[in-house]
């Protein structure tokens, strides 16, 4: 908290007049050993800077899962058996004119197929397309099976051989799977190896993604008539990592905006650069610490450097402000820096710690990325104590500030009438009439916000991969697949577990059939695939392909034979675990809920010792679990963060009315933020949880800055208007600067290719700005009514 005693310290223009033994122990320790402090900081910077270069980018999803939800526990318990059931890429090669059934187009598909075949990380034996020999047509004859690859060995591009290809594709039953329903494209299924068999290195998703882009560029880059659509987990992760690089670029933009703001505020380039530089140093240290502690930068934790930088600049501006004013009054730069440290160090630590509280409550949410965010952000705040509360004054004590800037800063404050119209407008709200208007308008907004936010959705609402924007290349590729093929990317995988060798139990499989059928009745369920479905198909397959045989027989020999054909693609080798994949039309929470409820109802209706149907894996299974946890956490989060903030305000103000003045504006912002989410179609999800905590945790800073000063001034006997007038002169402008700087730090995120980062950016910007206005308008308005003006005699406390 800013101190109000700016004029208590004597102006000392000659260093020889300064008592070096004055000040706190910490101040003496730091300022009497300036060279040591600087050298230490340089050393720390070198070490942590070196470590920071080793920070890894990561975009996996495991950490975004709610780790203690039963679904996630079930998945983890069976992870090894479920693995390999899906790390596939789907590359669709499409032609614009005509169909794929021309010599040129078939050759084109073959070229792409071959290019992918030779990519590292590809499980070549498992690759499947019309050009791979394992894609066979088969027909049953009176003599037994007859079949061959869909592209016959004697294929020569002649009309006859193309006709044969067409027939074979029909006979192989791969329309809508490997060949688009409109015959304008062919799909290549590319299973990936987690480990490179030659080098033993882990699959590098970013590199893989870039190689795929290379293929896309080479084969469909400048040809408008041809296009390649690539989907699959690995490509998604690759795109997310690319998105992270873009976001890193935003950091530069945020730095430039902050520099300009600071320069505009101080008119001193030298000191502005020092503040920016020290804040960047904080980010570097923080990254170095992250790398040293084994953390990786993921799409969530990359938020932290932005926040740390913005908070750093805010506090740096405070320090700078003090130094400027002292130097302007004629104090030597060293003494000015030391005065500022003396005045503001404790206040700065308190403010930073209160930010830290906002971060720390995030630890209570049982989702790894959020906990990581809490830890890394708290770490960053600690770093700021060194770089911004200590190093900035030290550096300023060496280099000083611009003369003109100092003169500007120390100009006597203008009278109320001379103030800029904006500040005079703010002063209005200390009068009963305007204050009442502000409160009524706020109440109406709160009521409207609560009304609108009843429609707040849980989970992600857009089609395609929710991590990316609906119009991203990846999601357009998903849309192409959904439109032209009988596939869906929203899969809820029910884990079907039996005792060893129990997967062939007729009773278990018939229960699976029943569950499958129940799920198919649900709105939003498009298809169900799994061992039981495939087994029925194989039953027909081994009986001359006659469709009337397509049923689950209760003949054990037949089941044994059918299932033996399906190991290990559809069931693990131990015959004890297989995924029932429920393909959904979307991943809206209502759709997921229907599946979850149907599964629970089924388990309640038909408990069995032969087979368990467990939730759940697959993207939608995890989303369902996440939704359940997030919905609960969203409420908990509000309780925790407001509990912490109220406690903090209580300690600071020691009055209920003070707490109300500080907290009610924050609550209005929280409500309006939820309404904004409804309006923008943003659902409550992992990414929005920290937003609320951060918005409130940092938002309370404003209240602390403004209200403490108002209360102090009032205690000095000033009426509210004058108190607020003096507050605006002292910290008000800084509050505005902080609001804008914080917003500038995150507003760039709105352009992130990663959807949830954009959502976070928009919401945080809104909260930072709106909290600022809340502190400057609603808070004094509330104070007008809630805080009793002291008796008229100006008594000193």
């Amino acid at each position: 908290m800013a101190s109000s005693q700016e004029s208590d310290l004597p102006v000392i223009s000659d260093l020889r007049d300064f008592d070096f033994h004055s000040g706190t122990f910490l101040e003496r320790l730091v300022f009497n050993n300036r060279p040591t402090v600087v050298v230490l900081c340089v050393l720390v910077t070198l070490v942590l800077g070196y470590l920071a270069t080793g920070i890894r980018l990561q975009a996996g999803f495991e950490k975004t899962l709610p780790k203690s939800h039963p679904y996630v526990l079930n998945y983890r318990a069976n992870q090894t058996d479920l693995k390999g059931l899906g790390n596939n890429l789907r590359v669709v090669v499409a032609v614009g004119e005509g169909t794929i059934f021309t010599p040129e187009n078939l050759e084109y598909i073959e070229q792409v197929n071959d290019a992918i075949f030779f990519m590292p990380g590809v499980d070549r034996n498992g690759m499947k397309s019309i050009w791979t020999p394992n894609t066979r047509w088969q027909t049953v004859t009176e003599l037994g099976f007859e079949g061959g690859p869909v592209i016959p060995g004697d294929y020569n591009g002649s009309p006859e051989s193309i006709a044969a290809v067409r027939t074979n594709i029909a006979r192989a039953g791969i329309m809508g799977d490997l060949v688009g329903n409109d015959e304008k494209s062919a799909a290549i299924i590319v299973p990936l190896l987690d480990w490179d068999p030659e080098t033993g290195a882990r699959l590098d998703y970013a590199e893989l993604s870039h190689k795929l882009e290379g293929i896309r560029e080479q084969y469909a880059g400048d040809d408008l008539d041809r296009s390649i659509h690539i989907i699959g987990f690995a490509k998604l992760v690759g795109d997310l990592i690319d998105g992270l690089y873009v976001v890193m670029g935003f950091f530069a933009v945020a730095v430039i905006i902050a520099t300009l703001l600071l320069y505009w505020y101080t008119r001193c380039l030298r000191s502005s650069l020092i503040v920016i530089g020290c804040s960047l140093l904080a980010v570097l240290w923080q990254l170095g610490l992250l790398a040293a502690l084994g953390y990786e930068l993921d799409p969530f934790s990359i938020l932290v450097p932005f926040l740390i930088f913005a908070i750093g600049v805010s506090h740096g501006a405070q320090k700078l402000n003090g130094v400027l004013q002292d130097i302007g009054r004629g104090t030597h730069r060293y003494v000015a820096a030391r005065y500022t440290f003396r005045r503001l160090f404790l206040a700065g630590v308190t403010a930073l710690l209160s930010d830290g509280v906002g971060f720390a409550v995030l630890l209570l949410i049982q989702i790894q990325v959020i906990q990581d965010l809490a830890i890394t952000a708290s770490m960053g705040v600690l770093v700021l104590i060194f770089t911004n509360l200590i190093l900035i004054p030290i550096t300023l004590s060496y280099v000083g500030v611009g003369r003109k800037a100092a003169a500007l800063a120390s100009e006597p404050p203008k009278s109320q009438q001379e103030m800029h119209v904006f500040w005079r407008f703010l002063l209005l709200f200390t009068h009963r009439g305007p204050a009442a208007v502000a409160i009524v308008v706020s109440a109406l907004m709160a009521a409207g916000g609560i009304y609108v936010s009843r429609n707040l959705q849980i989970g992600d609402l857009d089609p395609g991969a929710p991590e990316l924007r609906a119009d991203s290349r990846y999601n357009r590729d998903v849309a192409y697949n959904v439109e032209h093929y009988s596939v869906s990317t929203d899969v809820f995988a029910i884990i079907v577990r039996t005792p060893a060798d129990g997967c062939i139990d007729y009773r278990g499989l018939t229960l699976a059939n029943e569950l499958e059928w129940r799920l198919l009745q649900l709105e939003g369920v498009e298809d169900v695939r799994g061992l039981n479905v495939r087994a029925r198909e194989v039953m027909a397959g081994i009986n001359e392909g006659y469709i009337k045989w397509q049923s689950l027989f209760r003949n054990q020999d037949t089941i044994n034979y059918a299932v033996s054909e399906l190991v290990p693609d559809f069931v693990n080798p131990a015959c004890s675990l297989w995924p029932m994949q429920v393909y959904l039309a979307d991943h809206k929470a209502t759709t997921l809920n229907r599946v979850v409820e149907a599964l629970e109802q089924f388990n309640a209706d038909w408990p069995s010792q032969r087979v368990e149907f467990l939730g759940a894996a697959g993207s939608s299974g995890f989303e369902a679990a996440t939704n359940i946890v997030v919905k609960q956490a969203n409420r908990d989060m509000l309780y925790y963060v407001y509990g912490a903030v109220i406690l903090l305000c209580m300690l600071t103000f020691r009055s209920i009315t003070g707490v109300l003045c500080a907290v009610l504006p924050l609550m209005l912002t929280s409500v309006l933020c939820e309404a904004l989410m409804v309006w923008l179609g943003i659902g409550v999800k992992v990414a929005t949880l920290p937003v609320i905590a951060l918005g409130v945790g940092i938002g309370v800073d404003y209240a602390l800055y403004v209200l403490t000063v108002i209360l102090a001034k009032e205690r000095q006997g000033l009426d509210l208007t004058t108190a607020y007038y003096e507050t605006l002169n002292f910290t008000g402008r800084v509050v505005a600067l902080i609001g804008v700087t914080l917003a500038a730090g995150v507003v760039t995120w709105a352009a992130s290719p990663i959807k949830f980062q954009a959502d976070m950016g928009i919401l945080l910007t809104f909260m930072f700005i709106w909290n600022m206005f809340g502190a400057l308008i609603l808070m004094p308005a509330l104070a007008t009514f809630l805080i009793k003006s002291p008796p008229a005699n100006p008594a000193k406390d």
Partner: protein
Amino acid sequence: MGEAGAGRKISSTPYLYLDTSGIYSSDFNAAVVQIVMKAGVVIRVALLALVVAVGSPARATEEFDVLTQPAVPSARATHSLIYALRKFGDRYFATGIQGHILYSDDGGETWNQAQVPVRSGILSIDFPTAEQGWAVGHEGVILHSSDGGKTWVKQYDGIQYAREGLAYYQELAAQEPDNELYPVLVEELRLANEQGADKPFFKVKCQNDQRCNAVGAYGISVVTFDGGQSWEHSMHRYENDNFNHMFDYAPLPTPGRYFIAGEAGLFLIADINQRAAHRTYSVPWEGSFFASAATADGAIVMGGLRGRMFRTADEGATWIVVDKPQTSAIVAAIRLSDGRLVAVSAAGEVLVSSDNGFTFSLVPIEYVGPLSSVAEGPSDTLLLGGLKGIHKVTLPR
């Protein structure tokens, strides 16, 4: 088991697997269990014990069985696997998985789902009169309707088939110790009793509302003379030494004469008055026959594996190979009211013959997925049944 849910179990929790369910039958007890479920596990177990003590009739834990579970009304039925499509009078029938029997009185535009007491796949349906009908299918199920197909009762299933058949052939074997077939059939049925209801009936054909034949996998066959009150084993009356599957049972032009067609070129001529069927060895084909249609000029066209089709004008004595493009297996064939023949293939191809089945040609029709069945729709349309349900397509003239 008429009421849905009457046979269902009332749950314990899915995680504890306290399989105390199946003990309760009354709604009252169900309500008690509902309340108990909300209490803690300890109280739950205690109260369950109390409920048991109070005296619900205990019965063995029941497992899910398609033979005892009634079909559930489903909006998805018309889009799910359809095995057979037939038209009797003005009413269309479609039968499919999950005990689906659908009927339509408006030419296949809208479908109603009949009440069916089982969830077995229904493979064939026949209505000798407007009211009396039979349907057969997987698990050896035979269903009967006496209200034109709106509601059905189960008359027979594979478990009954195995049990009654064993006794029947044991008795015959005892009566005729010299007969070599009976001991074989006894052995077959002994196995069937071990496996349970594991064989489907593929076809039901009724001569009138009293007499029907059902034939199926591995040569299983039964006949009723009393409208299905009792079904008699008739396997031994058919010359089917290899127990080949029997897919088709249809009338020949001569009254009283029928043919049975099936796996490995099986073609039997049956005289229902003599109650015997004899194999015709003149068939130039060793693959399966799945489908047949009678031509306007009194011949029979057979279709089967590999898309092969054959035509006989003399009740199987001589055959010619039908001239047609290569297709996948022919799984259904019908004669239209204008005399043309339509055949459909497993891969979704549709063929038409305008010369009484001497030649067939492919007609361009929207691909609707693998097919099982076909029926003539109103005004130049076809109803196609298959993997993705029922489809109405326009048939070019």
